[in-house]
């Protein structure tokens, strides 16, 4: 089926995926109810393929990497390197050497701030972020500004959750050294035009970091097509384990960056007089890494690529459309974030019911959502709200989950006596 067929026959919905059975946790009831897990923006559940990969690693392949002459160490090293190649494939990086394993997105961004930014930035240099960034793409830059005297500039966001592109153009200047932008807003679901923003930033001579935490599981990512210099993501939002993620960095940049943590596995030679460092990416992976986590992440990437990220994106987009329509029908419910281009995230407010109360009542029906500021307090302040309730979709969600969400919101409105006629 091609896109033209889809567009010319709007009655035909893209085929929904039927993969919930791959995720053992989804079959456990919560409070005696079927679990409708809609907190995927926080973390995704793990398929058997990932759980088994980690288990198999410890049962059959565990050894330290890059240092053993024995067979098992070589075997573990091969698995670790294969995981790096999987990440390279996922992001379409030119080389596996451009992939640095980290604990996750946060550590990846901090690595860039401290290793790329700290030696280079100076008083009056500017770092440009957007008003919809997650705290993890704000605070590392604030720390860097304190260390270097650089200045953080913020691109405003429209009330519907879209970026103010004219303001971006205006704020981008000759002092802009770095542009750090999210690919998909975790709070609102807005998809940013990262390729366009990157091209503009490069024209201005700035380096670009894209926070892909909310993007990699929900859309195809091609760092070469985007053109960005750095791209960060977390494994646990991609059906992989917690505590593992990756940073893509363009080879020339990584090679010119000093280490940011010292230790074993990142050196070439150590002497008390002088130590030389390994080339990237090893230079940035001091100490024994999360080997089993990397293997699990590799399995997660092969799992989603086996299904196809285009199919996953189509599935989630269909769910987003259904859920948007269903929630818009609920009297007293207001959607927060209505950008034209959105990924599978729905933020909303219900009149007279605080998101935290809503979260508790939805939970009693087995419906797991996030309530709060979503680690995006500046954005909430901009929108004039303390927080939202957020439902976020993954490949295993189904229309039944949306039905459960809607029914649970009705229950909350009945309890609070706020249900409209």
């Amino acid at each position: 089926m091609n896109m033209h067929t889809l567009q010319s026959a709007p009655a035909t919905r893209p085929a929904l995926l039927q993969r919930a059975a791959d995720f053992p946790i989804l079959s456990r009831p919560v409070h005696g109810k079927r679990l409708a897990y809609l907190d995927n923006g926080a973390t995704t559940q793990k398929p058997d393929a990932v759980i088994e990969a980690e288990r198999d690693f410890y049962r059959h392949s565990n050894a330290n990497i890059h240092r053993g002459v024995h067979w098992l160490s070589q075997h573990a090293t091969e698995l670790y390197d294969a995981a790096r190649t999987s990440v390279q494939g996922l992001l379409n990086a030119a080389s596996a050497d451009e992939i640095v394993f980290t604990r996750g997105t946060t550590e990846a961004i901090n690595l860039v701030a401290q290793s790329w930014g700290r030696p280079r930035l100076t008083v009056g240099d500017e770092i440009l972020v957007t008003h919809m960034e997650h705290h993890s793409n704000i605070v590392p830059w604030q720390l860097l500004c304190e260390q270097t005297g650089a200045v953080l500039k913020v691109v405003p966001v429209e009330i519907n959750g879209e970026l103010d592109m004219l303001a971006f153009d205006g704020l981008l200047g000759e002092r802009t050294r770095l542009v750090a932008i999210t690919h998909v807003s975790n709070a609102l679901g807005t998809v940013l035009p990262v390729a366009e923003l990157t091209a503009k930033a490069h024209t201005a001579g700035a380096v670009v970091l894209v926070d892909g935490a909310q993007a990699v599981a929900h859309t195809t990512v091609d760092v070469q097509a985007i053109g960005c210099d750095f791209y960060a993501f977390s494994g646990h939002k991609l059906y992989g384990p917690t505590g593992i993620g990756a940073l893509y960095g363009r080879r020339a940049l990584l090679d010119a960056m000093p280490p940011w943590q010292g230790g074993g596995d990142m050196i070439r030679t150590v002497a008390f007089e002088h130590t030389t460092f390994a080339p990237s990416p090893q230079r940035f992976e001091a100490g024994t890494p999360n080997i089993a986590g990397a293997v699990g992440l590799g399995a997660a990437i092969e799992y989603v690529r086996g299904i196809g990220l285009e199919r996953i994106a189509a599935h989630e987009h269909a769910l987003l459309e259904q859920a948007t329509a269903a929630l818009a029908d609920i009297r007293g419910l207001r959607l927060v974030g209505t950008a034209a281009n959105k990924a599978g995230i729905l933020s909303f407010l219900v009149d007279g019911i605080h998101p935290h109360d809503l979260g508790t009542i939805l939970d009693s029906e087995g419906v797991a959502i996030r309530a709060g500021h979503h680690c995006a307090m500046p954005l909430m302040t901009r929108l004039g709200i303390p927080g939202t309730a957020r439902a976020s979709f993954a490949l295993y969600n189904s229309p039944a989950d949306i039905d459960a969400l809607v029914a649970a919101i009705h229950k909350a409105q009945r309890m609070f006596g706020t249900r409209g006629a």
Partner: protein
Amino acid sequence: MNDKDDMLRELYQEVIFDHNRSPRNYRPMPGANRHADGHNPLCGDQLTVYLQVSDGIVHDASFVGHGCAISTASASLMTEAIKGRPLAEVEALFRDFHALLTAARDEPGPQRDFGKLAALAGVREFPARVKCATLAWHTLHNALTGEASTAHTE
């Protein structure tokens, strides 16, 4: 209906809805001689507690702010409960109320008549919500002791 629904009804009693819809003593107090701000960064709840204290008695108590039903009702019920009470009683009530909400399931909890505050006992079954119910009380505690300018529960 299930156990969770019973717990939910214990949590969201009519008195909670009542105090959420119509919070008592919800006003700034220009003549306050004690006040403190409270903030729960996790859910964004924010409130200010005002007190008029003299001769060891809390003569007046009020609050303003925004939060969930549990935190609003708790703040409202708190102002009612402490008005006119000696400071020593207020501090004892703070300790007992805190113990009521945080006691382990198999513990009996403090033995005292909590009056309307007993309506908040259901929070015990919702560990993620205990902070909502105690925010106003920690803020009260700070206002009385002057320990910190902003109380945090997270």
